[in-house]
């Protein structure tokens, strides 16, 4: 079973995503700061990470860099309000799997999860 770590500084968003992902029998862990994310990452060792960019303590790009340097095989999906091309390119260069722009459409996310996570698990 896949493990997903959800990182966003908005607590409610993280909680909703937590409940949402649990529907699909995915094991979910939450973090609401960059620092907390790295701690949780080392503890949980997830297969997938949903990662916000703008966070008050550590920038999402930094978190991405740290995660990729620790475990390059982990897939990271950026979920962010930053629309500009530079941020998207940067994320891809740093090894992000996907880049989803907020506001987040759960149905679209569901499709992505279906293809990339759920179908592969079965």
């Amino acid at each position, binding site marked *: 079973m896949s493990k997903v770590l959800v990182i966003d500084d908005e607590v409610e968003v993280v909680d909703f995503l937590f*409940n*949402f992902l649990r529907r699909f029998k995915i094991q979910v862990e939450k973090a609401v700061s960059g620092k907390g994310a790295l701690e949780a990452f080392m503890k949980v060792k997830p297969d997938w990470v949903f990662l916000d960019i703008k966070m008050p303590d550590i920038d999402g790009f930094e978190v991405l860099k740290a995660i990729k340097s620790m475990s390059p095989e982990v897939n990271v999906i950026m979920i962010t309000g930053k629309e500009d091309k530079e941020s998207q390119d940067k994320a891809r260069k740093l090894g992000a799997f996907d880049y989803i722009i907020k506001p987040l*459409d*759960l*149905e679209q996310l569901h499709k992505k999860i279906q293809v990339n996570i759920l179908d592969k698990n079965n």
Partner: protein
Amino acid sequence: MNFFTFSSIFSTFSTFAIALLLFVKVKNKSPSYNFAYTSLASGIWTLGAWGFSTTTSYDTALIWIKVAHIGTILTPAFFFHFVSGLTKKYNKFLILLNYCLAALFVFYTFFYKDFIHIKYVFGQFYFPIYVNPASVLFYISVYGIFLPYAFFLLITFFRTTRGILRNQLKYFIIGLIVAWSGPEGLFLFALGVPIYPCSNILIGVYPLIFAYAILKYHLMDIRIFISRAAAFLISYPFFLGVPFIFAYRMEPVLFPLLGMNWWLVPTSLIVFFATLAPLAYGQIRSKMENAFLAEQKRYQKLLLQAASGMATEHDLNRLAKLIVYIVKKAVRIDFAAIFLDDKSNEIYRLKAYRDRGSKISKDMVFLYEHPLVQYLKKQKEPVLYEELPPELRESLGEFSKTSLIVPSGIEDNLLGFVFFGEKLNRQPYTNDDIDVFKILSHQAALAIENCLFMEESRQAQEKIFAAEKLASIGGIADGVAHQIKNRLNQFSVASGELRYEIKDFAQKHSELILKNPDLKKTFDYLAEIATSFLNNVKRTDGIVKGILNFARVEEKETFFSKFSLKEVIDVSTELLQIKHEISQVPLKLNLGSSDIIYGVKAQMTEVVYNMLDNAYEAIQDKVMRLEPEEKLKFSPEIKLRLLHEQSIDVIEISDNGIGVSKENERKIFAPFFTTKSSYKSGTGIGMYVVKRMVEENHKGKVWFESTHMKGIKFFVELPRK
């Protein structure tokens, strides 16, 4: 008196004098103290030589020669001890061996009859002759081995030194070579080479070189010393010698002519030449110095030229680079680095650096509290590395190879300092150099001050720009958009989750729902609400994107084009509606036959938006002050009219708002001026932006007509290309 006696007397005085000076001046236990003993010992030789050269009695001469010989033996021992200390090559065994040998030979001198032979020479005086193998052994061991070794140490040490110490050592070693060639010359005679022992005079010459060089010219290059001494030797003896020779030669001629007054002719010649000599000396000196110091004069001239050019540089970074470049290239040194005051961080920051390849950290700084900074603040003058207190030298870190530090400041304000490396030709920095650097540093300080002033005004300008940006649509949009997006995301995720929750529940409890139509109705309705939320999120997101896109275009677009004023007005009113949360802006348009104008579209949008915003707020301000019954009668109105004239377009925007009072008329375009009772935005930058965009960027004109409490009419005139 023969020459040997003269040289002995002269040398006795000079060596004793320098020994005395050193004993008085120098601290005990320092290497120089041993040099005082060395001088004293050599004085004993010359004193003895004075004694034995003035007697014709064999016995008296023998006693004096023995006294003199003590000097000969002790001098190299003390000298070796001194050099060991100076060069820090302290070998206790060798020093002790030297003293033991000295003691042995002193013993020999007095108790071993055949050690010294004396011989009457040149029909003038007795002189010691080395025929005994023991005395030859003495000569070879001390003067043949230890003395050259001491010189080897000295020269090795000299090569490791820099700057002023190197300069001083140079004199010192030259002095020593002169001094030691004295006894070596005497030995030649003592060993049987038939030349007159005239080198004795050299023993007494070295203190003169020291005294002259160290005391008076301790900073001056030896080339200056040599050229001045040579100029002196050429000019004075020649000019003053001529009258004497003249007098000597011409007496037989002059005496018959002038009788007892013949001396008047040579005397007047003396007077004439004595006035001429200093002139000649000055001429010769400057000629010789120019020849000797061509290189130095070249870069000094270059530096002074560059210094005057610095004032025209207004960019601090470029100035710093320029200074470093000039200094390194012109003076030809290892490296040059400039540190400048960074007031906000209370540090001196490395601004520019040039060297030959080696790397240093670019973010090197000196805190205000750093002892070097404190020291330079107090000194205010260029300081040589060797003049720095030892603890400061150690604190220089990566710049320990610095030879000279030149502070630059105005009054008590230390603006920065420059580190100079060593010259590539390893010449030390001279007094003349330092004088030039002082001028350079003063010029640099003025130029830096100038730059800082420019920088400050530039920063003030930037602050206004930043405020402008904040007040502009783009500025607001960027900041607010992110916040809005976060909230939208919350809505989106929550409503999405709500839909999934309903769907899941319906699937799990399908029977329950089938049985209960009311439940189904409620669930359907909830799902509908969630969908409506989602649709609204998408629409709002669209609006935000629209504003952001506009803001981005505005940032980048600076090109002139023909465009529709109507489009600009539409965008502006839409933004106004969002800003003031109103459904409609009370705007009446009269665009005439064509709404096409010429300019930078994004900037003109900003102009129109700001003017409409200003008009709307002026109206709101007026409404707030109206009595309730007046409010009912009042109908707000903004009019926009476009007029095409021969080569210009004029946009008129008028409102029936509060207008502007007489005393505020002149301030209306000033930045940060606002009369609005902090009604909505109130940054006070809007009309300033309008004026700048129109007048500076579009070369147009903005003016207005106003009656207080009745309204205002703005005119924007744009040239049509």
